[in-house]
């Protein structure tokens, strides 16, 4: 089995995130890191390998991003990936979710993976949707926010929490799975793995190398167009209910919830 793990470089959690008002894109200056949600996907790939049910020949970390995204790939390799692929091309900069998913699918298609794993969301975009876009372009089935994954030779048994309860779904391979952060506890990389990460194979590809149609990617060609950003409306002050008579207080709380159709 060949597993590809999609990873992303995001602003570090300590950096204040803001939008560049002239481009509508996130200001990506400052310290960056591997998207923390992706570490769960790498760990899931490692657990498939170590589980031994289906032999894993290779784990490949794949990203799209500027030159600096190489550091996210190094971290992914230090966590267990065998090698990495970096799609780096000005033509894809500023792509929306749909265009990014297309570009990543083109990059993955060259690898012919049996399983594509990714984190449930990125720490910056918070879109939750890349996996389903990638899967559609690859013609693979997909599931998102998987919190348990059992592997068989040519299928997966996945569990996830939907709005109506817990789902258990059998899915045939090849497939695209986005994992929730409850699926595992990512390991820490060893010093040896950190030191050796830069020596692992890194394949840098352009849009042309992976057959991306340039008219479908980039900010100007994206179907979703950023118009403006604004401050959120100020939150209304909360309502304080003093507990002088508990029965009456409970009645007031129930009434308050009922008015807002919350119960």
């Amino acid at each position, binding site marked *: 089995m060949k597993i590809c793990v999609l990873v992303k470089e995001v602003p570090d959690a300590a950096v204040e*995130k*803001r*939008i560049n008002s002239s481009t*509508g894109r*996130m200001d990506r200056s400052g310290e960056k890191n591997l998207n923390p949600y992706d570490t769960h996907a790498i760990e899931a790939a490692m657990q498939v390998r170590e589980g031994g049910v289906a032999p894993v020949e290779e784990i490949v970390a794949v990203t799209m991003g500027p030159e600096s995204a190489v550091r996210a790939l190094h971290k992914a390799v230090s966590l267990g990936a065998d090698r990495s692929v970096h799609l780096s091309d000005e033509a894809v900069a500023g792509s*929306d*979710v*749909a265009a990014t*998913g*297309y570009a990543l699918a083109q990059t993955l298609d060259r690898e012919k993976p049996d399983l594509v794993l990714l984190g449930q969301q990125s720490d*910056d975009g*918070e*879109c*939750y*949707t*890349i*996996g*389903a*876009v*990638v*899967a*559609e*372009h690859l013609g693979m*089935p*997909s*599931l*998102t*926010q998987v919190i348990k994954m059992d592997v068989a030779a040519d299928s997966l048994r996945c569990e*996830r*929490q*939907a*709005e*109506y309860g817990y*789902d258990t*779904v059998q899915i045939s391979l090849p497939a695209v799975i986005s994992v929730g952060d409850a699926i595992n506890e990512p390991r820490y990389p060893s010093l040896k793995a950190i030191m050796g990460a830069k020596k692992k194979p890194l394949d840098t590809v352009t849009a042309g190398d992976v057959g991306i149609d340039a008219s*479908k990617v980039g900010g100007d060609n*994206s*179907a*979703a*167009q*950023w*118009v*403006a*950003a*604004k*401050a*959120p409306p100020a939150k209304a002050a909360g309502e304080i209910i003093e507990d002088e008579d508990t029965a009456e207080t409970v009645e007031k709380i129930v009434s308050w919830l009922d008015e807002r*159709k919350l119960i």
Partner: protein
Amino acid sequence: MANILIYALHYEGAINKNSLGAVSEGAKLAAELGGEAHAILVGEGVDQSLAASLGNYGAKKVLVAEGPEGLAQPVVDAMGAAISNGDYKYALFGGGLLGFEIGAGLAARLGAGVAMEVTAVRAEGGELIAERPILGDSAISEIKYRSPVGIVIGRLNAFEIK
């Protein structure tokens, strides 16, 4: 006509609350655009009265497609076919895990723009503009669509049932 197709999730004989909110919101927006709100249900032997009940929330037509429940791809197939054959300018989802999966898959299938985690939508100049909180809800981004079809995926409970 600027019709809107809205996905209605149902489970154990009832329509999901988020979907009812989405149908209500879709009906309001379609009226503002001069079009109609249509809803779509996918399932095995969907009860006709359940489908008809969506009329109470503003759906002018309800499409029912046969397919397994709880999976995104049968819905992407059904909505993709309906949009390709019909006259829809937008697809609207009330959010939730399936809404995100279906909306994203549909965007890829149709080459459509998609906005997710949307908390408000307004009609302006004959088109929809979606608002979504970003950067940990510290700002709101406004998004419109260049594609013939736009996909709007709401945040859970963002759209009020009317």
